[in-house]
């Protein structure tokens, strides 16, 4: 199963979803992201790897403007989603985030029922015209989150009562429910045990059919397992970006090699 990505890895050109050009990010006086340029394809899992504090999460949070919620954070450069500048003044981050969903490091279900957790996004964005439609959206999302079978009998139970892996899949379902085009995942498995991790990884691979998925991960094995493209970040620089197979077998930059072979990080 885990060899599957390498078999499917093909070379036909996919649509470009995100294109970032010369992106700089500052936290106050700290220069966190230095001149990053990258293009991310649709229907692809792209992994961001690198040692702690290399800026991979920061860059991820630029893609749906989550950094806006931090006062001291400043983003420069050009990030385009489907050719539209997402930092344009006319863009409402609320709409952007509906299009670019996000899953976080720690599972963070709201203290509400499982149903309400998933229905939250569709409700605030007005995606359903009736209760029946909402039910359908919730069911679809839970199926996509590969958790429907486990929770369909207890949709009224609190989301916080699920196990860690279930919670994370619930959060993925929650993100999927707003019908995003891109899914950002910030180390989605770091708080999970190996079995739950395997389930989530399998899910990520399936999500690729419908979305462009970007995943930040600490684990090189995970990147190798789930992604088609890999970007290696180091000290705020994007050091290397390419096919996952190529990065792990034949890195161009020696820093990438050092990291992959375990000499830095």
């Amino acid at each position, binding site marked *: 199963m885990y060899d599957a990505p390498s078999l499917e890895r093909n070379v036909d050109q996919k649509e470009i979803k995100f294109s970032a050009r010369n992106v700089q990010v500052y936290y106050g006086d700290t220069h966190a992201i230095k001149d990053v340029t990258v293009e991310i394809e649709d229907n692809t899992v792209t992994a961001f790897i690198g040692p702690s504090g290399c800026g991979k999460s920061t860059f991820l949070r630029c893609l749906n403007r989550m950094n806006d919620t931090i006062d001291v954070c400043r983003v420069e450069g050009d990030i385009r989603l489907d050719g539209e500048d997402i930092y344009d003044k*006319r863009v409402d981050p609320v709409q952007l985030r509906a299009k670019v969903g996000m899953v976080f490091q720690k599972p963070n279900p709201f203290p509400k029922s499982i149903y309400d957790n998933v229905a939250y996004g569709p409700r605030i964005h007005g995606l359903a015209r009736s209760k029946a439609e909402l039910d359908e959206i919730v069911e679809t999302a839970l199926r996509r989150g590969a958790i429907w079978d486990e929770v369909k009998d207890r949709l009224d139970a609190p989301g916080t009562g699920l196990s860690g892996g279930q919670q994370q899949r619930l959060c993925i379902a929650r993100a999927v429910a707003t019908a995003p085009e891109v899914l950002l995942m910030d180390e989605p498995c770091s708080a999970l045990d190996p079995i739950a991790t395997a389930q989530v990884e399998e899910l990520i691979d399936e999500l690729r059919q419908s979305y462009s998925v970007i995943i930040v991960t600490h684990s090189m094995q995970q990147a190798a397992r789930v992604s088609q493209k890999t970007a290696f970040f180091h000290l705020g620089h994007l050091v290397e970006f390419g096919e996952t197979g190529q990065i792990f077998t034949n890195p161009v930059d020696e820093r990438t090699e050092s990291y992959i072979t375990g000499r830095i990080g």
Partner: protein
Amino acid sequence: MTDASLPENSAAAPAHRSLNTVDARTRKRNRAEARFRAYGIAAVATGLVFLVILLGSILFNGVGAFQQTFIKVPVYLDPAKLDKSGERDIEAIKKVSTFGYTPLIQQGLFDVVQAAGIETPLAKPGDMKQMISPSAAAQVRDTVIENPDLIGQTVDFRILASSRVDGYLKDRVFREDVVRDKNIDVEHLDIVDGLVAAGIVVKEFNLTFITGADASESRPEQAGLGVSILGSFFMMLVVLALSLPIGVAASIYLEEFAPKNRFTDLIEVNISNLAAVPSIVFGILGLAVFIQFAHLPQSAPLVGGLTLTLMTLPTIVISTRASLKSVPPSIRDAALGVGASKMQAVFHHVLPMAMPGILTGTIIGLAQALGETAPLLLIGMVGYIATNYPDGLASGFMDPNSAMPAQIFEWAKRADPAYYERAWGGIIILLVFLMTMNIIAIILRRRFERRW
């Protein structure tokens, strides 16, 4: 896991839309957002407006108390009235009561009015009575008894004007109202206008308000806060001397030594609940235990201090424990590591490091106690007219006295509106004390704040 391979265009998938156009729903949501934010701003603004109104009305109503109307009168100290024997015998002079002095002052004022050329239908010196504070006679008498040689001379006095005259100059008493007032007539106000023009009736800074004693109901112009400030001071001494050591000792025990058992649990629950017991209940406790049971004197600052100590203790314990907790365990480990006993580790290292926090908490607790009124009502510190300065320490603790907030309450209850001004003025003084204490606490905290 076949769930994921559902058709692409499920119900949830909307048509592709540009990010650059804000749709109607988002606009609506943003308007709701703006409204919600506006509620928040309105709430904060309302709170701040209340604060401004409160402080504004304190200042507006209270500043007047720091000024008082005085009349500059030359008084002829008639030997025929004050020292009939002519021997300047001090005992004989003392026999003349204030009633003997009143006509002299009235005569003096009458002469001044005549000299200033103010036309008035009031033809007798006795008619001047309503303009002069009843305290003036005592003031003149005291001066004479202190210096009998003045008898026979004409001496310039600065005497208090009556509270109605004072109110007239402070826009508290109006000509229209005076018609119904038997304490003063319109003719007197005419004279006052003339004397103000002549610079004889003046409004000056009133030190007596800060340092003086309370006066009877009929002489608001004489009343001051000084004695009750002393009462508060002695109370705070008691509170400080008891609550600091007891509070710190209790906190040290609970934070550093207490084993986890039912007794210490009981103490903990107790303290957190005591902090929320209404202050009036502490008043009942003080009344029942210190006055009914232990027969300590009523209205004594000692009793007030004891009652307030019990009230302040939980506050001090809570803040002291917080500052003990903020000293990192590594400090204790370091001390224990070089062979200090636990007691030594606490007293030599932890306590000094927590001291700024403890002092800050203590000052804030004291400030709270200083402004507290309700318990003092029950132990008799209200209703007592604080006219005597305590003579000495023992008297300061044991003799009946008032306290600042109790005195303010007392004034607020009196019928004469002239006392309201005094009450507001008293509040200004009280708030100045509280502000000073809080600023000291803030400076202490800033200065010694340590982040671990």
